[in-house]
């Protein structure tokens, strides 16, 4: 079964990229937030509604910590991962699509 790892590296407060991505993900796909994309992991934001619970959501831990986003501020269904797990995810999905 073919599935896509979507990466998003832009702040959703500045850029519509996350919205464009979330509108196109399909069953089996996952989303990885990195760089300024990790601001999308902040809770109580409108796009949290767009995050379908049937998908997996990840964020790069180093990017979250760099930006001072404490765990109390983050959406609970987003899993923090390191770059080695990013590599693993890219092998577990058949394609990687970068939304930038």
């Amino acid at each position, binding site marked *: 079964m*073919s*599935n*896509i790892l979507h990466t998003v590296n832009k702040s959703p407060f500045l850029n*519509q990229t996350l919205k*464009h991505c979330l509108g*196109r993900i*399909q069953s089996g796909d996952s989303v990885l937030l990195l760089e300024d994309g990790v601001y999308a992991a902040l809770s109580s934001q409108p796009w949290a509604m767009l995050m379908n619970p049937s998908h997996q959501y990840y964020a790069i831990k180093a990017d979250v910590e760099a930006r001072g986003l404490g765990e109390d501020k983050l959406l609970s269904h987003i899993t923090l991962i390191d770059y080695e797990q990013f590599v693993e995810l890219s092998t577990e999905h*058949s*394609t*990687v*699509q*970068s*939304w*930038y």
Partner: protein
Amino acid sequence: MNKPKTKKLLFLFRHAPYGSALAKEGIDAVLAASAYDQDLSVLFMDDGVFQLLKHQKPDDIEEKNIINILSAFTLYDIQSLFVCQESLAERGLRNTDIAIGINIVAHNTVSQLLSQQDHILSF
């Protein structure tokens, strides 16, 4: 190394022309790929649909008309051209606004296109 199997490559255009060189450099990549006997598709989505508009006249900003470059796709035998219908509609654009022959596809087909690829090259 053995000759690998033919790969399905999708070139995905999400950015408007002229604002940056990305659109043009993406098209250059498609033209380069056409020489490699792979299974190529091209999809215009989000602001990428602006590349397809009729009546572009970039002479005064000293850029090359991106429609002229896109028209080379036919010469290079690149046939699988798609544009996201939803992206057009969001921007208030109609089928008649498009300058080249292309398949206008709905959300379902866009999803299929994305999921069928070996690689997506995003510009």
